[in-house]
């Protein structure tokens, strides 16, 4: 087709000539075969103007799908391109093949044949209608149906006024009397039901349907008959959170209603006037309980964000009951239930007065006269805004505050105290009162703060509650003098209100501070929380936040004209929080990790070369404190210690330390240890039969090297990592030390070699003892103890990177990066499977186990499979397969042998008569089912691996070409 460009004015479209969105190909794959009419009743075919098929037919049509419909001697048949009969002329009428089928007529009756000569529908019908799902068979004005998905199954005979297709398995036929017969895969399973199968009375994942017979409802299994006899007024499906059954963790139960109510009444389940008329049954028809109920108050909703602990709540004679997921029924003795913290707790009225605090399973935790949620004052941003002040003519910002429910693990509880009530705050987790009692009318503010070191797991997190009379935000002056108390878990109760209310309580690491006393004369109570206990560290220091500490200028300006420099005092920018301690003009600090440096310094300020270093000064001398590690160098230097960034940031350094610039002819590390050469100028030297480390001084390259590390090793050698040395100790064991003598790898291994190097700060070593291997990380220590003959990573990326196949004897297991054994070394082989997920697969004999690598943790459940495919595990059964979800090893369903379909990327593997083969996605067989077993080939979507009589074949499914192992 010629391409051309068309210019179009405004509103026109630039057209490149290729507007076509699809090209479905030629209508006729044999366009050269042109029908040729020699006379009215003599037709043949020409090709390139040459007669190729003689004009011996009464009528011909074009070739379609390889064959042409032609008429001969009054009958219709099909010929091939050679003019030979493919299907002999036996039909009164025929249709050219379209999509592999053709409607034909014989003796006045219509049928359907396939282009493979198969008779799909015998020509015994007056007519046939076709739609996307079905063939509708018509005889004498009556209808039947044949599913297009199952043309080999029996057809529903054309004896119905109408037929209703529901699914490829299920259809219904309407009788003249208005009743319906229901068919399952072509077999009549129920007669004379009041209604057909529709989405209203069927759930797709189950083979049962709710139907009525003569106005009474029952539940009918399409394959096995009545599960619940039809004797109920109404039956309703209810979802049930039965996590033992797989289908997104939901199954069904039935609500059975005695009374005869209109099925379309949407309110019937909630009609409390229905007395004792509702029961429940499991999916197998078994009654859950003999109890009958008046109403169903609420039922399970899988899509709801908030899931109650029960499945269904029912009413009966003024009482409330709950059907639990284990099918037990509990009387719910509470009313006016309020959820707290998204159903983690509940507040409910108690029978006879008072209120309960309930846990998520509705067990009573405690009871009080009254229980409420805490409401905090928050700014209402929607309504806050500027107000016009007519006096000043200006707009003033007027924040507005509102109270809002707090979903935190504490509640407000009340008790009677004479004629008045009092209230306190209740810790739901510790189950105790955590504050003093306040007047009922007293507004109290509770703040909840986390304390603990988030970065060091050994210091547990806890919650610090502080409480005080509510702040008056409109008049802050009125808050002067207010006192607060505090509570931390582990305490039997909170303190009295003896501490000053400050704006912010500096909480650092596991420390917090409370202040008592009058402003200007406060006592600072420094508390430390550790190991579940709170201890008072000191009251003798004044404590402040590091943010309030001003240090040396971090910026300065120089005016060249005047020659003057000026310093700007800037807030410090420490990377690690700390508390400042002051006493009698001396300064100290408490690091985030809890290292206390008592007030002994004249001043402390930020080191200008590093954000994690504090300079200390005493009598004019400088020292440092490393806020990250807690190291201290006592003040002894005339000038500030300056971190040598070149060395620190050198890309060869993997040892996480920093060194200071030269102090004379030596340098210091952060602990203050001296060393004389840079790490890269350090080398081993043997002295008197032992090895130590020497270094050339940076300041004097020509002087003799100085001792860096005393010669105390049996052997030292520069390792494969710069500035790190292999060291052999007295026991001939090996380890590694750094240039300054720190032991990085303890000297206890027979061998050390690099496992791998990824160029970053992590470095993995293979360590071995007695020929058993383990893994050691230079930063993190021993990851996997040396007890395996082999260790290899399972994958190159993501979660597989942290899983290792380990070998003991001739068996393999799986270990994670933390040395945790995920699979014992009991398997013949361990591999990785990428198939609708990532799985570790271990083989033992002919069995396999598999688990998902998603969490690199020990699988909770291991199931043995016979084969795996499509993210599923299959276990052979006598006449089929049990199917499991590989991700969690949960059973899903049992599939009959011949219904097994393994979904592939380019074809499916199917089973027929117990043999495996391949089919396209429409079900057309591509590879005959002759194999004893078949599976997909990894990384080759077009290949199927089949086993036949013990021989393994590789089969190109597209053309069914196969190769043995050798040929492959």
């Amino acid at each position: 087709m010629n391409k051309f460009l068309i210019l179009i004015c405004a509103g026109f479209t630039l057209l490149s000539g290729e507007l076509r969105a699809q090209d479905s190909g030629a209508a006729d794959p044999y366009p050269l075969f042109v029908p040729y009419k020699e006379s009215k009743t003599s037709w043949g075919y020409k090709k390139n103007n040459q007669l190729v098929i003689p004009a011996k037919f009464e009528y011909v049509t074009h070739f379609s799908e390889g064959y042409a419909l032609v008429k001969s001697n009054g009958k219709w048949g099909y010929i091939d391109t050679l003019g030979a009969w493919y299907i002999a002329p036996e039909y009164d009428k025929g249709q050219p093949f379209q999509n592999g089928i053709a409607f034909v007529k014989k003796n006045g009756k219509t049928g359907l044949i396939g282009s493979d000569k198969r008779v799909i529908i015998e020509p015994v019908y007056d007519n046939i209608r076709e739609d996307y799902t079905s063939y509708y068979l018509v005889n004498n004005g009556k209808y039947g149906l044949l599913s297009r998905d199952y043309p080999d199954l029996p057809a529903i005979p054309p004896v119905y006024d109408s037929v209703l297709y529901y699914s490829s398995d299920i259809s219904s036929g309407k009788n003249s009397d208005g009743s319906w017969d229901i068919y399952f895969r072509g077999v009549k399973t129920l007669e004379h039901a009041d209604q057909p199968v529709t989405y209203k009375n069927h759930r797709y994942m189950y083979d049962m349907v709710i139907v009525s017979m003569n106005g009474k409802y029952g539940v009918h299994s399409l394959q096995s008959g009545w599960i619940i006899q039809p004797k109920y007024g109404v039956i309703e499906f209810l979802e049930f959170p039965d996590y033992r059954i797989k289908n997104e963790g939901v199954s069904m139960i039935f609500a059975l209603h005695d009374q005869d109510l209109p099925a379309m009444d949407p309110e019937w389940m909630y009609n409390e006037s229905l007395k004792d008329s509702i029961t429940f049954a499991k999916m197998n028809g078994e009654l859950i309980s003999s109890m009958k109920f008046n109403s169903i108050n609420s039922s399970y909703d899988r899509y709801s964000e908030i899931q109650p602990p029960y499945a269904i709540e029912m009413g009966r004679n003024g009482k409330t009951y709950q059907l639990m997921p284990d099918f037990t029924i509990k009387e719910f003795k509470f009313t006016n239930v309020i959820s707290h913290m998204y159903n983690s707790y509940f507040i409910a009225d108690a029978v006879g007065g008072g209120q309960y605090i309930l846990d998520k399973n509705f067990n009573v935790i405690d009871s009080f006269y009254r229980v409420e949620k805490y409401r905090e004052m928050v700014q209402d941003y929607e309504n806050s805004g500027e107000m016009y002040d007519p006096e000043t003519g200006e707009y003033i910002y007027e924040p507005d505050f509102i109270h809002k429910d707090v979903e935190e693990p504490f509640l407000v509880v009340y008790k009677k105290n004479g004629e008045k009530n009092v209230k306190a705050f209740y810790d739901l987790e510790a189950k105790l009162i955590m504050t003093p009692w306040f007047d009922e009318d007293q507004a109290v503010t509770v703040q909840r703060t986390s304390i603990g070191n988030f970065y060091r797991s050994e210091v547990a997190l806890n919650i610090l509650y502080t409480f005080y009379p509510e702040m008056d935000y409109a008049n802050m002056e009125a808050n002067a003098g207010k006192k607060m108390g505090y509570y931390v878990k582990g305490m039997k109760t909170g303190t009295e209100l003896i501490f000053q209310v400050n704006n912010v309580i500096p909480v650092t690491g596991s420390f917090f501070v409370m202040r008592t006393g009058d402003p200007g004369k406060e006592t600072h109570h420094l508390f430390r929380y550790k190991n579940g206990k709170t201890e008072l560290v000191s009251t003798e220091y004044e404590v402040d936040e590091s943010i309030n500490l001003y240090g040396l200028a971090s910026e300065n300006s120089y005016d060249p004209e005047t020659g003057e420099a000026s310093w700007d005092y800037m807030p410090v920018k420490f990377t690690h929080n700390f508390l400042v301690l002051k006493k009698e003009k001396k300064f100290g600090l408490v690091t985030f990790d809890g290292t206390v440096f008592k007030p002994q310094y004249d001043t402390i300020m930020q080191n200008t070369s590093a954000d994690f270093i504090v300079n200390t000064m005493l009598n004019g001398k400088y020292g440092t404190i490393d806020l990250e590690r807690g190291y201290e160098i006592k003040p002894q230097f005339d000038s500030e210690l300056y971190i040598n960034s070149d060395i620190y940031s050198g890309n060869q350094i993997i040892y996480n330390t920093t060194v200071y610039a030269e102090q004379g002819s030596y340098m210091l590390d952060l602990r203050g240890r001296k060393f004389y050469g840079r790490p890269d100028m350090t080398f081993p030297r043997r002295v008197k039969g032992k090895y130590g480390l020497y270094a050339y001084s940076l300041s004097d390259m020509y002087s003799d090297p100085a001792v860096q590390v005393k010669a105390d090793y049996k052997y030292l050698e520069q390792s494969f990592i710069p500035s790190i040395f292999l060291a052999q100790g007295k026991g001939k064991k090996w380890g590694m030390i750094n240039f300054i003598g720190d032991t990085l790898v303890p000297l206890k291994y027979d061998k050390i070699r690099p496992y791998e190097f990824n160029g970053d700060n992590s470095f993995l070593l293979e360590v071995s003892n007695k020929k058993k291997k383990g893994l050691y990380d230079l930063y993190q220590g021993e990851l996997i103890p040396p007890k395996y003959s082999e260790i290899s990573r399972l994958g190159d990326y993501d979660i597989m990177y942290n899983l290792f196949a380990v070998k003991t004897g001739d068996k393999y297991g799986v270990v994670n990066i933390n040395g945790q054994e995920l699979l014992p070394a009991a398997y013949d082989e361990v591999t990785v499977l990428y198939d609708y997920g990532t799985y570790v697969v271990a083989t033992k004999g002919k069995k396999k186990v598999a688990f998902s690598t998603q969490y690199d943790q020990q699988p909770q459940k291991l199931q043995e499979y016979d084969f795996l495919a499509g993210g599923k595990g299959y276990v052979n059964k006598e006449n089929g397969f049990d199917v499991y979800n590989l991700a969690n090893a949960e059973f899903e369903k049992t599939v009959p042998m011949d219904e097994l379909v393994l979904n592939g990327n380019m074809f499916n593997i199917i089973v027929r008569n117990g043999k495996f083969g391949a089919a396209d996605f429409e079900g057309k067989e591509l590879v005959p089912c002759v194999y004893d077993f078949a599976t997909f080939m990894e990384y080759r979507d077009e290949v199927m691996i089949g086993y036949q009589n013990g021989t393994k074949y590789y089969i190109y499914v597209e053309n069914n070409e196969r190769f043995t192992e050798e040929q492959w």
Partner: protein
Amino acid sequence: MVRKNICIALACLFAAGSFAQTEFKSVFPEKWSAKIGVSTYRTNMLLHEGKIFIGSNGVDRNYKSDELDGVYEIDAKTGKILHHYEVPFSGDNDVNGVAVGDGKLFFGTDNYYFFCFDLKTKEELWKYHLPYDVESCPQLADLNGDKALDVAFNVEGFYFYALNGKNGDLLWVNKSITAHSGNSSPLKYDVNGDGVMDFLTSGRGNSESDEIDGFKMAHYGDYNLAIDGKSGKTIWAVTTGAGVHASPFMYRNGKNTEFLFLDSYGELTSVDAKGKVLKKCNFGYDNFSSPAVTSDQYLVIGRGALEFNPKVFYKDGDSLPEYVNNDAKYVAAEVGGRISASTMIADVLARNSDQIIGVTEDGFVFISKTNGELIESFKIPAGAEASLFIQDIDGDKFLEILIADLAGNLTCYKTKSKAKPTYGRFR
């Protein structure tokens, strides 16, 4: 992109029988009725030499061996079926649009074929095998200069074909875009002035945009286009916002000729012969009825009419297209049922002025003023998709109204009007 949408307050749907009580035949007496099978909104009727020609979808549109499928030749005076043109082999041989000329009958089927029959001998002259169904009406014109009528048509999901009327040989096929659903019947007009009829139609090609426009994509790939009758090449194409089922309408606006296209999401585009978009406006969804314009400049679509004179249009800036301003009135008849038939324009009430007359699928015929105001609606025995046919078919100088309904009947009704219909037949 349509700038201004008309807020269409479509009529609420009344239950059958709740509004129109008058039977149509009480005002327009029935002349005859013939059983011809089911028809669709793509069905046309032709009057040729005293006979009515109409295609049929048979007893049931989905029957695969339907004896009523085919084309019917009916005596216009008596309603007697003179001949039933049938496809000699089985399959879904539904016929929608037909064309008659040069003593021949032309039609396509749902069975992937296009046929030509001799009107005299009733014999099949030729047939052409296609990749899919022919859903719409064919057009006849001499495309190759042999003084014989050739035929052009579109194929659902495929292309636009022109066949030699004498022998069925392929003259050309335009594959630049597909016919999409193929429901839109082409219009013929010499767009490029070369003396050979060209064809205006709609189809789907590549989308020009990935953007979303409100509830839908900005462009699904649909175009209104003109195809050169001589070569089959696309002369011009303009975008439209959705698939097209309605057929284009040509009307003369003074000296100018405009072509109206309507897509299924209600975007109406007016285009001149050179493909310049002149006007745009928007109606509601589900438009299967083709637009038409009355002589007093009302745009008629389905059950209503919109002012279509220059005063209701405005330009946004200096450039085209023009848009309908919000003051423009659209008046729709409140009559029950969906409308897919195109509304005709004729003076069926003998009032010396045109009315618009249409039919619904629920079995109502409505007659309104050209401005859309309902005059009256009537009940007919069954609903209809096919557009009415209004002409003097029997030479008695009075107009007749033909209704092909969904019960499979073609019924002829008498009128008292001698007026010439302005727009009396769909194609």
